């Protein structure tokens, strides 16, 4: 079971308290009806599914119930960092994670 740090509660809590909510930073179109089939497919179905660093959403379901984002390595399942919803995708990851980032 994973230990996940909720950026709102500022605490590491067991995975059982959380729900994974899929890939992060996928923007929903403001004009959904106007989307082309190609763009809707990309938004709705296509996922990056990386072997390595993933940016994903989690929800602290049985805690503060808020959504936040996390950076995790999908090979080791190790979390590199978590950050609040609405914050930009980190352009630089913390130094101590250089090894994983190099992948």
């Amino acid at each position, binding site marked *: 079971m994973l230990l996940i740090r909720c950026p709102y509660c500022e605490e590491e809590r067991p*995975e059982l308290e959380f*729900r*994974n909510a899929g890939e992060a930073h996928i923007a929903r179109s403001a004009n959904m009806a106007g989307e082309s089939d190609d763009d809707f497919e990309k938004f709705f*179905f*296509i996922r990056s*599914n990386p072997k390595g660093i993933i940016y994903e959403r989690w929800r602290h379901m049985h805690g503060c119930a808020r959504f936040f984002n996390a950076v*995790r390595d*999908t*090979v080791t399942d190790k979390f590199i960092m978590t950050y609040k919803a609405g914050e930009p995708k980190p352009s630089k990851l913390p130094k101590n994670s250089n090894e994983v980032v190099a992948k």
Partner: protein
Amino acid sequence: MKKYSVFAIAREAMRGHKGWEEQWSSPEPKKEYDVIIVGAGGHGLATAYYLATVHGITNVAVLEKGWLGGGNTGRNTTIIRSNYLYDESAGIYDHALKLWDGLSQELNYNVMYSARGVMMLAHNVHDIQVLKRHVHANRLNGIDNEWLSPEQAKEFCPPLNISRDARYPVVGAALQRRGGTARHDAVAWGYARGASARGVHIIQNCEVTGVKRAANGAVMGVDTTRGFIGAKKVGVVAAGHSSVIMNMAGVRMPLESYPLQALVSEPVKPVVPCVVMSNTVHAYISQSDKGELVIGAGTDQYVSYSQTGGLHILQHTLDAICEMFPIFTRMKMLRSWGGIVDVTPDRSPILAKTPVPGLYVNCGWGTGGFKATPGSGHVFAHTIAKDDPHPINAPFTIERFRTGRLIDEAAAAAVAH
């Protein structure tokens, strides 16, 4: 290839078993092949086998980054059934089931297919409606599936607890008698032996690191840890890693990869005569010929390639197993493991041509690909050989996620494969 038979056993017994030959050869890779298959699991090897036997294409290499059958082929719970709801699914899974029957004879290799019956339990009114709908849909498609009362279910599977006091009371069941199990390793080995005997090169410890495309976009071959290998046709059959390989060719896929776990108990005398599944409580169980109870658990909730998975997933499944079969509460579990399954949004596979000329993909089998192995290989070989899908796999395109023509088994049977 020397034929396996009772006479071969007798002959070798006289000779001290010195005459057995290797089941498949391990040649050095050539510079170029007609077809490259990426992934030597059951589906990839079956594809190579049918390319050779049905289509006469033998200049084929199957590339495997690890060892043959060491991925999900060696990690699944070996269940075979075809009682899917939709016509498209019924078509492909029953095509496979028909090939299972007689596969040992065809391959001259005992895959231990045992049609011991797959029984799916209903625990509430909703389950009854869903399973009866399956029974009727299956019958319309010519697939056997029948409704059982709790007493009939108990008669078919004596250790089942049908007490009304159970946490998950059994209120009925759907039974597909032709369903059952097979020996997973033997399936990979049998196809590998048959393909190798017809000239297919099986190259293990050879990881694909890139897909090369010509100026016009068509596939030229693959970069591997053993150098570049050319081919005008490349079939990607890489299970959990399919999207990784497809990304190398510049194709983004509607796939996500999750850990899926299974476990086996200590071996005991025969006690579970069939496969029992419950979608509602998410547990399924059968007994291997070695005597181990084989139990399938669920997927983790997050994308991962770690081949592990969380302990609470196993506990959840074992809680349900112990409720349904109180006699197993004191069994010791021997081993547990995880495999990485590639899941599509509608939980149906993709067996198709891709936007890249010469590149084909067979993926998205999610949590239930083993049962389809022979059928999948058979129609995928057709797709590669003819550059056109077989009518059976024609609906399983990548484009369905753009057109909306989904085969939504997720809504029909989201779990328990």
